[in-house]
């Protein structure tokens, strides 16, 4: 089976910015790589422009917590863009403990003709300066600079799993296993703790926070999911500490499907609001569920991602795959996309209820070629072109995918490779 030669290159998060012009990826080595959408070529107007590398920078470095004798991984857990307010772009990137606000700006001009220093930067001999001149801005090769503008540190005892920018564009929340903090983007030395589920006695711990997201329009509302498969919606107007939820979403367990691993597979790995804010979707190990915020007792839709794995949970537990945290993404909530194994990813059309399985791999996707739908055979007889469950490569997992906010363009991270697929225009 395949393994990654450079583990630091494994992509750990993917996110388009608000316009879709930029696509950011974070990796296990703490680097952020930003791709930019090139304008459509005049020669080939029927093809969309490509995404090319725009900027690369080291966001986080490995650190050591001397008090606890623990290494802090530099892996980027999440990247979230801020809405663009001027020519520069801002994004938040986080590892397990520290969130950073990065400013990405372009520089295509340089001042030349300084009085006190020459072009090399060396100071000029003052006696040689006989006249005064005004420096002139000259064009230069485009340089993209990334600089850390804020560092939000020391607020999380446990491992950060989510960050989410609020609709007020001034605050954002960060969530770890037991706590959620609210930050102001300008203030780094303080954050408000808004959720704390740490029990007084840690032995009584039964669930942890797995993901959190701000409501897209109501800046006082946010949700967080748990390892027990529940989602809590909280209103920050109700209390300073939102330990008591306003809404509690949970689907009753099906007693017939109970197994050793029922609890693990019900743990929610991702939660995302719809654009309207009326719905949300959650990803657990085997399915994606769509919830109506007005109905707490069960989801309105459930999509099976890879139900054929239900009978293999024991081996997936042994090889650790059962702990994989898949994300989900939607395109205006018409379609839902999520990853699976063997470099497969799944797309569900909410209107027609059709679903498709596609593969992100070099062998199966030549540039400009149409992706062929794949099928996993679950019965005894395997048809031609189908792949049997036992032949699936569980090392090739697609955990992170993103959908362009406006166009039919998707980014799929397959281990250390990034695939960008787009619709043909005609």
């Amino acid at each position, binding site marked *: 089976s395949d393994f990654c030669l450079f583990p630091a290159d494994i992509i750990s998060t993917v996110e388009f910015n608000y316009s879709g012009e930029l696509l950011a990826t974070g990796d296990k080595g703490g680097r952020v790589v930003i791709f930019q959408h090139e304008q459509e070529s005049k020669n080939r107007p029927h093809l969309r422009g490509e995404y090319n590398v725009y900027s690369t920078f080291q966001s986080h470095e490995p650190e050591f*917590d001397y*008090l*606890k*004798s*623990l*290494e*802090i*991984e530099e*892996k980027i857990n999440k990247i979230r863009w801020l809405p663009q307010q001027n020519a520069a772009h801002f994004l938040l990137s986080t590892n*397990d403990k520290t969130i950073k606000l990065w400013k990405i700006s372009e520089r295509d001009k340089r001042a030349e003709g300084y009085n006190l220093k020459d072009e090399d930067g060396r100071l000029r001999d003052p006696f040689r300066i006989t006249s005064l001149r005004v420096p002139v801005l000259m064009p230069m090769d485009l340089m993209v600079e990334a600089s850390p503008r804020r560092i939000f540190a020391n607020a999380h*005892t*446990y*491992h950060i*799993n989510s960050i989410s920018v609020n609709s007020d564009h001034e605050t954002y929340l960060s969530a770890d*296993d*037991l706590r959620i903090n609210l930050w102001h983007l300008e203030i780094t030395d303080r954050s408000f703790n808004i959720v704390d589920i*740490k029990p007084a*006695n*840690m*032995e*009584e*711990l*039964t*669930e*942890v926070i*797995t993901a959190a997201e701000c409501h897209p329009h109501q800046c006082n509302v946010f949700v967080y999911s748990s*390892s027990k498969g529940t989602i809590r919606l909280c209103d920050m107007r109700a209390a300073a500490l939102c330990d008591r939820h306003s809404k509690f979403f949970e689907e009753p367990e099906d007693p017939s499907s109970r197994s*050793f*691993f*029922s*609890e*693990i597979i019900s*743990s929610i790995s991702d939660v995302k609001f719809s654009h309207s804010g009326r719905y949300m979707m959650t990803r657990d190990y085997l399915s994606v569920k769509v919830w109506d915020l007005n109905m707490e007792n069960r989801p309105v839709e459930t999509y099976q991602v890879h139900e054929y794995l239900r009978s293999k949970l*024991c081996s997936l*537990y*042994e090889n*650790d795959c059962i*702990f994989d945290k898949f994300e989900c993404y939607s395109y205006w909530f018409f379609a839902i996309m999520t990853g699976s194994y063997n470099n497969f990813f799944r797309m569900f059309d909410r209107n027609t209820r059709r679903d498709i399985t596609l593969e992100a791999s070099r062998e199966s996707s030549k540039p400009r070629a149409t992706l062929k739908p794949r099928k996993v055979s679950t019965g005894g007889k395997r048809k031609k072109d189908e792949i049997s469950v036992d032949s699936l490569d569980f090392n090739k997992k697609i955990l992170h995918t993103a959908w362009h906010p406006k166009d039919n363009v998707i980014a799929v991270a397959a281990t250390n490779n990034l695939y960008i697929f787009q619709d043909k225009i005609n």
Partner: protein
Amino acid sequence: MEVNVEARRILAVSISKLYASRTQRGGLRLHRSLLLSLVMRSARDIYHSSRESEESSGAHSAPEEPMDTSSSPGEQARLSEAQHEPQPALNSAELAPEEPDNAEDCCDSDITEDKENLSPTKQSRKRRGKASAAPDFLPSKRARLEPGEERYALMSFLEFFHFESRIGPSGGPLLAHGPHVGHPCLKGSFYNS
């Protein structure tokens, strides 16, 4: 019984995972540890309930009490010498979470009892080795987590082992359960490498 065999296998796999997670880069992951402990508890419960249905009533001196799956991880745990052979250990195990040795030593050697976590009516057979526990005020060179987190991780590990009731002075079975006070001697002890 097949379920029994599978339960034991899952327990063994879970323990090795919990061990491996101690040395994982980035420290112990609370979410993962919690999920491991849940699986271990399910497997343990199924293992014990399947054993109960197999055995006759008078086979053991200390009858087992099936544990509720929704109960907290804070139930009293017993360590057995043979962690790979839970069956013979079930009758003789006692608590020993306080030595600063690593968990392997705890399993292999004689067990000391955790006085603090016993219910008041329990008799403690052995005295706690206070001298061997690292005092809190000294800096510990061993990898540490939050005090509660460590305790939690250790309890997850101990979860595997059978919680057994003992005959108390009244002659009836006693249950060890309920929330337990944090055990200061555990600080730094679990992660001795």
